[in-house]
């Protein structure tokens, strides 16, 4: 059983913040591990995105996804092209939490598979931590809906959560959780749903300190599958370059 279609590499926690007049170039990857002859073993998913802060409250991103399903003997194929919109609802840091809203349309490039719309809120909270560091907590709660040709009428739910300890801008260890229900109309039992959780390490570096323009960010994580429908393990990484004009 595949991860949340159509972009498995979209196992990432989104921020509610928009950076006006800033370009972002982002790459996400996901590799799964399971029993040798399992359909969940050896799958690869990669996304490549370009985004821009169009206004102080609206960011637009265009993405393509490439995937490989090992058991099916599939080589890398273009899976989907996606338009993502993030709307920043509240000014950062002004209120108790930061709030954004996410709207995505993903056009499937696989014959027989439906396209998809994803919508939902993003909440982020900075809080006191320990070791003299603050903490950052983010939750995405999205509803997904199949659309277009080959749609099965399924409505799904995807929840992603992450908590990080901001020890240093280059080193922010944390934990994250991803929970996916493909069909809220027939959720089944918990073991029929996809749940993955594990450690993550993130950081950012302003290249201006090295005399170069822009900023680079990274996230690396390992996820443990918690249910039968989840791969036993998965490695994910994310690299991002930002440049403002």
């Amino acid at each position, binding site marked *: 059983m595949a991860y949340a279609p159509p972009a498995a590499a979209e196992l990432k926690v989104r921020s509610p913040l928009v950076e006006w007049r800033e370009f972002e170039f982002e790459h996400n990857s996901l590799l799964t591990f399971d029993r040798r002859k399992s359909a969940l073993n050896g799958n690869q998913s990669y996304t490549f995105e370009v985004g821009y802060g169009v206004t102080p409250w609206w960011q637009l991103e265009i993405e393509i996804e490439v995937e490989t399903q090992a058991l099916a003997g599939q080589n890398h194929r273009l899976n989907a092209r996606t338009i993502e919109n993030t709307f920043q609802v509240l000014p950062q840091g002004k209120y108790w939490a930061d709030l954004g809203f996410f709207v995505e349309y993903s056009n499937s490039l696989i014959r027989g598979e439906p396209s998809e719309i994803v919508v939902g809120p993003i909440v982020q909270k900075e809080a006191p931590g320990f070791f003299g560091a603050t903490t950052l907590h983010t939750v995405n709660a999205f509803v997904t809906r199949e659309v277009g040709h080959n749609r099965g009428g399924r409505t799904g739910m995807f929840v992603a959560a992450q908590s990080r300890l901001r020890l240093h801008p280059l080193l922010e260890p944390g934990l994250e959780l991803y929970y996916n229900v493909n069909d809220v109309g027939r959720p089944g039992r918990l073991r029929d749903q996809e749940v993955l959780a594990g450690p993550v390490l993130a950081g950012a570096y302003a290249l201006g300190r090295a005399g170069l323009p822009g*900023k680079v960010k990274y996230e690396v994580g390992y996820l443990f599958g918690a249910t039968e429908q989840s791969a036993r393990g998965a490695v994910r990484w994310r690299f991002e370059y930002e440049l403002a*004009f």
Partner: protein
Amino acid sequence: MTVRTAFLTIAALAAGVAAAATASKAWAADDPAYALAIRSHRFSPAQIEIPANTKVRLVIRNEDATPEEFDSTQLRRERVIPGGGEATLYVGPLPAGSYEFLGEFHPDTAQGRLIVR
């Protein structure tokens, strides 16, 4: 769970968070404010001292004709400020320490530090 229930649940959660967040609006208006200017691609003052464990407003005015981006990975704040424009950033509560910021468009000269005591 039906489709309608799923959408209503998500919408209620989002509305609840927005309500809880904006309930603190009156408090936010009382946050102490600190002025920072960008002048000849430099921050003035280059160092600002703020109290620990207190949310503050940084009111940044770009007095140059060209845009500058206030950027601090330590503070997790970045904002492009057009030439002649102004931006307000909410920072904190922060533990005691020193937090660097720079102007991404002129990193050699636009450098500053927030001292939290």
